[in-house]
């Protein structure tokens, strides 16, 4: 699945075009036509790009678009992609290394460190790196912390851009469909850690991600993300509030909740993303997924690789914000 950039993006209907349309319509009515035929005649003179845009909107509203069985909506993802492109290029000035390690087709499990307390943007930036830097861009699916799927809006948004609830069943099924899957084994422990703990990898669960990769015969590609730790530095945790709303944690950052909605704007840190050599697991076979020792070994190997690359890229990045 590759994203074809929209070549003939429609220009926003500007006031001039609208005024033109209304003027022609008035002329039509003055000629003695009924409003419907007048609108018809006026519409014929509208620029083609606008008519195409209306046609596309109409198709969307009539449900003539595809969602796959996971609820991933490629049209929607393409529509919101420019926002992430802006964050990628301008806001966080992401530099990506080793994107060539991501296979152009076929299954693979990307495993990355997780950070960014309020909204972990790392998944979207890894996706951005693949979409922008890879010679054959493709959408990746990502496993999302369960709690996000209870929330209105966020759950719908996540699902449409390729998120699925973090469950080994989902990960295995996606890999078996030859998708590219992103997993964050640190989970809430990674995003919820204090700012003082930044870039120190937390426990990698129980190695469940290795089990999934073994069962599906997919290679693991460790990914180190530098920069997400600084976007919402978590200074404290509003524990009673978190308990009250059932969230894993509610971070207090230098700007949130003090500045209200403005506190939701992430800080513009510089980012580096490095994709490491794939770890081939196919030689073990799917039965090895029951070997707890192997799971821990591979899990530890992935964790060490990411930790090492994190330190390396922290040095390469230099200054945090400038």
């Amino acid at each position, binding site marked *: 699945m590759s994203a074809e950039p929209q070549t003939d993006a429609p220009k926003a209907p500007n006031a001039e075009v609208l005024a033109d349309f209304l003027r022609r319509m008035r002329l039509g009515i003055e000629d003695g036509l009924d409003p419907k035929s007048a*609108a018809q005649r006026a519409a*014929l003179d509208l620029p083609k790009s606008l008519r195409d845009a209306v*046609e596309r909107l109409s198709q969307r509203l009539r449900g003539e678009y595809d*969602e796959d069985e996971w609820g991933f909506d490629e049209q929607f993802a393409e529509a919101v992609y420019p926002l992430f492109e802006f964050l990628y290029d301008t806001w966080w000035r992401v530099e990506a290394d080793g994107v060539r390690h991501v296979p152009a087709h076929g299954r693979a499990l990307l495993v990355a460190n997780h950070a960014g307390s309020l909204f972990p943007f790392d998944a979207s930036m890894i996706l951005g790196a693949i979409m922008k830097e890879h010679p054959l861009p493709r959408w990746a699916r990502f496993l999302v912390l369960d709690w996000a799927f*209870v929330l*209105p809006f966020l759950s719908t948004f996540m699902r449409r851009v390729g998120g699925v609830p*973090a469950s080994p069943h989902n990960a295995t099924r996606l890999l078996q469909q030859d998708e590219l899957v992103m997993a964050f084994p640190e989970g809430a422990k990674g995003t919820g850690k204090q700012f003082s703990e930044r870039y120190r990898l937390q426990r990698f669960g129980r190695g469940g991600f290795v089990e999934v990769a073994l069962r599906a015969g997919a290679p693991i590609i460790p990914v180190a993300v530098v920069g997400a730790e600084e976007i919402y530095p978590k200074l404290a945790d509003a524990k009673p509030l978190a308990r009250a709303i059932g969230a894993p944690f509610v971070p207090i950052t230098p700007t949130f909740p003090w500045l209200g909605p403005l506190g939701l704007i992430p800080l513009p840190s510089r980012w580096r993303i490095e994709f490491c050599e794939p770890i081939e697991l196919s030689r073990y076979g799917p039965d090895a997924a029951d070997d707890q020792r192997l799971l821990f070994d591979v899990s530890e190997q992935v964790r060490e690789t990411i930790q090492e690359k994190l330190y390396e890229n922290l040095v390469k990045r230099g200054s945090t914000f400038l």
Partner: protein
Amino acid sequence: MAIGRRVVIVGIASHWGAELARRLERDPAVDYLAGVDTVPPPIELQRTDLIEADIRGPVLSRLLPGTNADTVVHCGILWYPEPDKPARILHDVNVIGTLQLLAACQRTETLERVVVRGSAAIYGCEGPSPSFFTEQMAGRLPLRTRFQRDISELEGYFENFARRHPHLVCCMLRYQPEIGPDLDMPLVRYLSLPVVPTQLGFDPRLQLLHADDATGALEAATRNPVCGAVNVAPSGSISLSHLLRLARRPSLPIPHPLFGPALERLGRQLGAGPVYGDGVRLLRFGRGVDNQRLRTEIGYEPRFDAVAAVRDFAAKSRGRRVGPSLHPGDLVGRLARVGG
């Protein structure tokens, strides 16, 4: 199968029981067909013996052995209240009725197969659930409605029964909700409203089974049952927003804390009673199940996938609307046709 079969359908007055009987009547391999219910079936049946009995009572234990049935199909599990079956007796019909039926089955020595039309509600409806439940995943999530708990309870009894009678093939079908223009069910009525209320910010992934596939799967499972639970669902899934667009129904998003009382009121009007099924939660979080076992083991390939089922429903129920369509898709479409 070469042997002539003697089939008893419990709950013949239900839509699915009657449809199954109609299909089996056409099959000469079926020697004897009988239906059990308290009221006659909604359609005319040719050679089906009607046995008037209430499955909640012990009378079935006396009647069933006399039929010498080798196959019992239980279609009597109710999702929603019906005119003669108010909400308060649904638990009795579903759980106690199934227990009585199993007791009757135990006394029927000729019996070989028991097929139950159950529900996928046993998986529950939660936001962070796996996108496709497989049959082993029942009972992992909390059950929040009476119907979900009832289904879970009766599946427990059924499993016990299967364990104690290893020579019987006991098949539990877990149905996703059905859709069809001719179906008179609360969910279909909900989707046929002129303006469909939805829960603000939520867009559940649904699998609505085409009515033809629902009967087809039941027939396939009656002919070739397998031991254990089988999910009955279309392939793929469709989100509620996509569904409503295809069906040309404008939606009215309501913040979900307000949706419960509002829907309960609406639900009573639609015939769902004080929401007994998993309606509200299903319309918030949705549910997907894996239908591989149905396709490979029972050997029934659903003719409609999740999107095709909705397209078919939309195409066939369009004529019902009164007045011009107010759906924004149609309005913009008209403008686009004018412009093009």
